[in-house]
């Protein structure tokens, strides 16, 4: 594909095209440049449409390609999950800062409440593990220790951030009334922490189950397999795929004696 001769264009269009070219992902750049060179060239040589302006369209098209490439790269990834949770923790701290009005007051307020968190968190974790979904995932091939460790690290980081977030938000919720009703606010804060942490950890378990066992990206393209009316004769349920092609997860609709749990199969096991 030859690089278009931008000197055929108006100087303002040429400058805009060269500026926005940097925004477009490298793999789409040549195609994008060729497309917009042609659009601008035809607009310039078409007197009937001289009043049309493509500048906004050009900029929004480049920005769309950039955000789409980020969406493709980061949707469902470990990084996005942890960064989102960490950002929510920062937001919760800022909310407290807005209520108290000073950083020192905020940290003092959290500092007084932190022992409650240290006592409550192990109980919440214990209850969450006891109530965690019973379906376990079987390995389709020999155990892969490295991926197992990766999953445990991710789950620990996610659960820790969720506990911290529950603590920060529950503290923020009753901070305003703490001065007037200290005992009531302390009690409500503990209840709110327990509820938020239980819900958060429940989500964390469910989220962990629907991630690729190798790259830990959220699984996609759920598809129904089999017929519920044939439940006693054949498997039926939902199959999810890793978008990077590492494997597939089969989740049975109903637990039967011969299909009690979800089954993860690595792609190389399928091929072999």
């Amino acid at each position, binding site marked *: 594909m030859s690089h278009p001769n931008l000197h055929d264009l108006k100087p303002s269009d040429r400058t805009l095209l060269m500026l926005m070219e940097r925004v477009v992902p490298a793999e789409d750049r040549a195609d994008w440049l060729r*497309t917009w060179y042609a659009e601008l060239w035809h607009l310039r040589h078409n007197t009937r449409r001289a009043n049309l302006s493509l500048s906004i*369209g050009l900029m*929004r098209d480049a920005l*769309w390609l950039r955000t789409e490439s980020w969406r493709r790269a980061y949707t469902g990834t470990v990084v996005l999950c942890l960064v989102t949770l960490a950002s929510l923790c920062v937001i919760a701290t800022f909310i407290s800062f807005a209520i108290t009005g000073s950083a020192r007051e905020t940290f003092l307020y959290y500092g007084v409440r932190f022992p409650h968190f240290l006592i409550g968190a192990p109980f919440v974790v214990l209850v969450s593990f006891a109530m965690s979904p019973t379906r376990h995932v079987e390995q389709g091939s020999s155990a892969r220790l490295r991926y197992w460790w990766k999953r445990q690290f991710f789950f620990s980081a996610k659960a820790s951030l969720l506990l911290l977030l529950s603590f920060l938000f529950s503290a923020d919720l009753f901070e305003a009334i703490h001065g007037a009703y200290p005992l009531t606010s302390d009690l409500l804060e503990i209840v709110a922490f327990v509820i938020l942490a239980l819900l958060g950890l429940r989500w964390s378990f469910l989220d962990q189950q629907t991630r690729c066992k190798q790259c830990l990206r959220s699984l996609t393209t759920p598809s129904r397999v089999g017929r519920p009316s044939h439940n006693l004769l054949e498997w039926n349920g939902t199959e999810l795929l890793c978008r990077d092609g590492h494997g597939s997860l089969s989740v049975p609709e109903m637990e039967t004696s011969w299909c009690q749990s979800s089954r993860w199969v690595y792609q190389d096991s399928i091929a072999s």
Partner: protein
Amino acid sequence: MLSTPRLSHTAALILKAISLGYCFGFDIMEVTGLPSGTVYPALRRLERDGLAASKWEAEDKATADNRPARRYYEITKAGKAAALAATERYPLLARLLPEKSR
């Protein structure tokens, strides 16, 4: 069976314009009255969702006319189904756009 995607009014209007034969970006802008900042990203989304497909004009034809080749859009099979569903959902859509004279 896969369900047809629910389109916004703007996306349905653009898809309808493609189905009527308006295949270039500013042809669509002109016939729909939508600004370029709406039309071009919407065309990308329709292409990503498999409702429209883009192709390049034949280079030799463009060279013979002494102009650069342009990217044009065509409606796909899934797009036709979505356009039909959108026409049922937005009955005035068909009246908004004139059939393109060939």
